[in-house]
């Protein structure tokens, strides 16, 4: 994994949509693949927008928007091979998309019908983890398992800039480094941890943390899907080849509120937002496609329609989602029989029966 260029932000596509070269990271990519990436970016943003709307309408309890982070997520998500495994935070809707997880699965959690509930092993995409940083250790352990199995899979552990301060994340760095585990630590530095700017977490760029643990760190333009793809591929490849972990800092910006419960006007000014709008991860790919004749009007129109369909499906699926029954509380707490759970389930069922037909 090249470390040399790390001092500089790796970029392969400028905000204006121009391809640029980087001494350490290159990407050979055809028109079709570019269009596919663009499609991913557009669709994940559309799912996100729809989810935000659903929350406003009371259909979701909360939503953590990925707005502005589409490239970081699609770039890294598309860098993964089938046998690779992702451990997300609560914001990796774009990665979920790339892994083939149905957006409706994500919505269940935010609607409050479950705490996750998709089968992590079906798409090699672990459940969302909301305790900050905890999943980086699971990812490391999983990677240690891959290593023991002699598998050629690798793992990506997602986390935020705020999470870099948690003990768990730093312990994950130590374990991964000492055991040379095939794991890529992918930090989306969106520059905010709720209301706290990045300087409350670190006084130096985050990618430099890796050197302190003995593995390479790279800062990539997190709004550049091509650069993220190239850098993540290289890091996964490096892990696969037995070179151990890499830290990728995807430098980006949280364009929306932390979640729909948050009110960013209390703690940040509009200026930054305006300047980051010019770095939009989708616009630059669109500009690149258009300017170079890599996609025609029909492509954009078809995508628009697909996007509308997806949004409609997500909306309908959300509204159709059944609430869990009261006795589901007792399900899946244990794999094996458990007398206390059985007793409580039985008593509660009997108690609920007393209301049968009554109004209470």
């Amino acid at each position: 994994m090249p470390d040399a260029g790390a001092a500089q932000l790796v970029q392969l596509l400028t905000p204006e949509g121009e391809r640029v070269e980087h001494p350490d990271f290159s990407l050979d990519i055809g028109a079709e693949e570019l269009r596919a990436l663009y499609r991913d970016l557009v669709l994940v943003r559309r799912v996100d927008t729809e989810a935000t709307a659903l929350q406003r309408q009371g259909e979701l309890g909360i939503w953590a928007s990925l707005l502005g982070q589409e490239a970081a997520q699609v770039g890294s998500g598309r860098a993964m091979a089938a046998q690779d495994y992702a451990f997300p935070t609560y914001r990796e809707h774009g990665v979920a998309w790339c892994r083939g997880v149905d957006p409706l699965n994500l919505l269940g959690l935010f609607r409050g019908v479950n705490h996750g509930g998709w089968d992590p092993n079906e798409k090699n995409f672990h459940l969302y983890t909301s305790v900050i940083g905890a999943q980086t250790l699971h990812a490391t352990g999983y990677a240690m398992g891959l290593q023991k199995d002699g598998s050629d899979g690798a793992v990506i552990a997602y986390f935020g800039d705020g999470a870099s301060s948690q003990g768990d994340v730093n312990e994950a760095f130590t374990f991964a480094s000492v055991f040379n585990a095939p794991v890529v630590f992918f930090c989306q530095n969106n520059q905010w941890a709720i209301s706290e700017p990045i300087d409350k977490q670190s006084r130096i760029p985050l990618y430099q943390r890796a050197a302190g643990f003995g593995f390479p760190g790279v800062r990539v333009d997190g709004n550049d899907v091509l650069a993220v793809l190239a850098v993540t591929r290289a890091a996964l490849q490096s892990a696969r080849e037995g070179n151990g972990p890499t830290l990728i800092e995807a430098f980006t910006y949280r364009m929306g509120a932390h979640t729909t419960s948050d009110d960013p006007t209390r703690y940040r000014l509009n200026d930054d937002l305006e300047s980051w709008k010019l770095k939009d991860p989708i616009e630059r790919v669109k500009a690149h496609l258009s300017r170079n004749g890599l996609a025609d009007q029909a492509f954009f129109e078809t995508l628009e329609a697909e996007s509308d369909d997806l949004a409609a499906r997500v909306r309908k699926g959300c509204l159709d989602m059944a609430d869990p029954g009261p006795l589901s509380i007792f399900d899946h707490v244990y794999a094996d029989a458990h007398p206390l759970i059985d007793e409580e389930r039985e008593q509660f069922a009997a108690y609920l029966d007393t209301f049968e037909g009554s109004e209470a």
Partner: protein
Amino acid sequence: MTQITLAKGVNMGLRKAMEADPKVLVMGEDVGKLGGVFRVTDGLQKDFGEDRIIDTPLAESGIVGTAIGLALRGYRPVCEIQFDGFVYPAFDQIVSQLAKMRARALGKVALPVVIRIPVGGGIGAVEHHSESNEAYFAHTAGLRVVACSNPVDAYFMVQQAIASDDPVVFYEPKRRYWEKADLDESLTLEAATPLHRARVMREGNDVTIAAYGPMVKTALEAATAADEEGKSLEVVDLRSLSPLDMPTLRESVRRTGRLVVVHEAPVFLGMGAEVAARVTEECFYSLEAPVMRVGGFDTPYPPSRVEEDYLPDLDRILDAVDRSLAF
């Protein structure tokens, strides 16, 4: 008289304490400009500065651990834990350091640290945002654990907690943050009920209901409903979970002969277990029925769409009352 919410009560209490003692600090995640995710520290940083209202790195062990160091240097830090489910990374610092350091030092240091925890469910939140973990801390010698249930108590109790030379885990019932009550600001701290005293919120003769934090309101509603059925419930707000105010509980139970303990936390080894065991030992001959416990089930806190089934409500309290009376 000012009408305040419970959140505002804590806010005003913090302000009072900070005005009275320059050593009082507030530290935590997002407590500054944002005023905390529940706005409990709203406006404090503007008035007291970044040096006293400290936005920390995102690390709970770091928050409590550095608070201990600040306390050793003579400060009185109030740590905000953003949600109940996020206190566990600080568990070691709380139970092995904060709780034990004074005994370790043979009394030569004091650890006046307050850990504020918005607690419990009922707000439709996602996982880890609705937990009730008071039993962990109440089981830990060296800590004091209290829970406020209303705006006026919130205002006084947070000041008392800060004034304590012992570490205090201070629970705020998050779904009651917006409940309102009138506060007489002219009342002094000295006039307030002592921090570790329970309070009879409603007198009754048939069954005692002991509750705390968010469940006090539910218990009072149950008492009103029971009244209509001709059952007279006495409601005790425990307020202090460690130590327990046994004299108040004893007096009530000896009179009514029956006790139902209510909390959101899982029943197994929840506060109800201790209250039941202790009251039974001390009031054995007065009890007409075993102490009944109404609490969360012994499962992880469920998804929000089913939390109303998980949480004790009026009906489940009345059901326990009936079971008690049936003995």
